[in-house]
């Protein structure tokens, strides 16, 4: 039984270590993308997300330190009401801020579609006009090419018809 517990503990240690290492490596390589960790709906950074991130790390590391001090004690250390209230305030701020952000569709414009300021201004209109002009000129080129192809096809059909008529006349 003791040997079994040792083996299970060893496997658990390996699993937790491999899991943690994999997560860290994936974050470092960019396979787990953290670029939008603090971003709002419009792509700009959010103060409430930043606050929640800081408090989460502070409380997590503090709690871990307390667990380490309680080597001889049993059970999980009690979390004071003040800490719970602090995390509640931070999470509520985040939730309300998210609600406000998503209540305004203009603020939800992705950054790539504009200049990132969350509103429709002159630079956005200019960029849209330039893109539309480029698309129109490209469509005109495609239309001319298609027209040439149609004319070529009609010419080939006429020639084929003439050849067929000549062949029919020769046989009769």
């Amino acid at each position, binding site marked *: 039984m003791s040997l079994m517990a*040792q083996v299970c*503990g*060893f496997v*658990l*240690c390996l699993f937790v*270590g491999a899991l*943690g*290492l994999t*997560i*860290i490596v994936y*974050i*470092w390589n960019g396979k787990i993308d*953290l*670029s*939008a*960790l*603090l971003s709002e709906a*419009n792509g*700009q*950074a*959010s*103060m*409430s997300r*930043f*606050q929640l*991130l*800081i*408090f989460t*790390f*502070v409380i997590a*590391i*503090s709690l*871990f330190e*307390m667990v*380490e*001090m309680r080597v001889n*004690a049993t059970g999980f*250390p*009690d*979390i*004071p*009401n*003040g800490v719970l*209230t*602090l995390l509640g*305030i931070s999470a509520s*701020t985040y939730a*309300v*801020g998210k609600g*406000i*952000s998503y*209540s*305004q569709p*203009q*603020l939800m414009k992705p950054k790539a579609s504009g200049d*990132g*300021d*969350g*509103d429709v*201004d002159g630079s956005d209109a200019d960029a849209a006009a330039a893109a539309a002009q480029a698309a129109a000129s490209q469509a005109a080129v495609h239309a001319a090419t298609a027209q040439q192809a149609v004319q070529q096809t009609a010419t080939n059909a006429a020639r084929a018809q003439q050849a067929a008529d000549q062949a029919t006349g020769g046989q009769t």
Partner: protein
Amino acid sequence: MSLVRVLHFELLGFLCLLAAVVLFKIVTRQVNLEGLITHKDGSDQVSPERIQLLLATLAASATYFSQVASNTSGRLPDISPQWLYLLGGSSGIYVAGKAWVTYNIKKRGLGGSS
């Protein structure tokens, strides 16, 4: 070395590495911080409510860390009500400012479309 110690070092290493990687990505701008302390109404002006929330957050975090570092009782130190009032008020100001800016954008948008 017992398995408990191994597990302890694993978890401590994971937490510290995670914090270090996130901090590194923030410092090297791989995590987007653009607009963290500015208004979101297109003016790009510095927002006072965001500045005060940032300062209150950093002050509260540093204070709590110092309490944890000096604590030897093995229990998480409690946070005084004064700090909670401060953070609650600071967060309230931030949310109110955000709502006000959003309301103004909405009003401006409706006025421009009519």
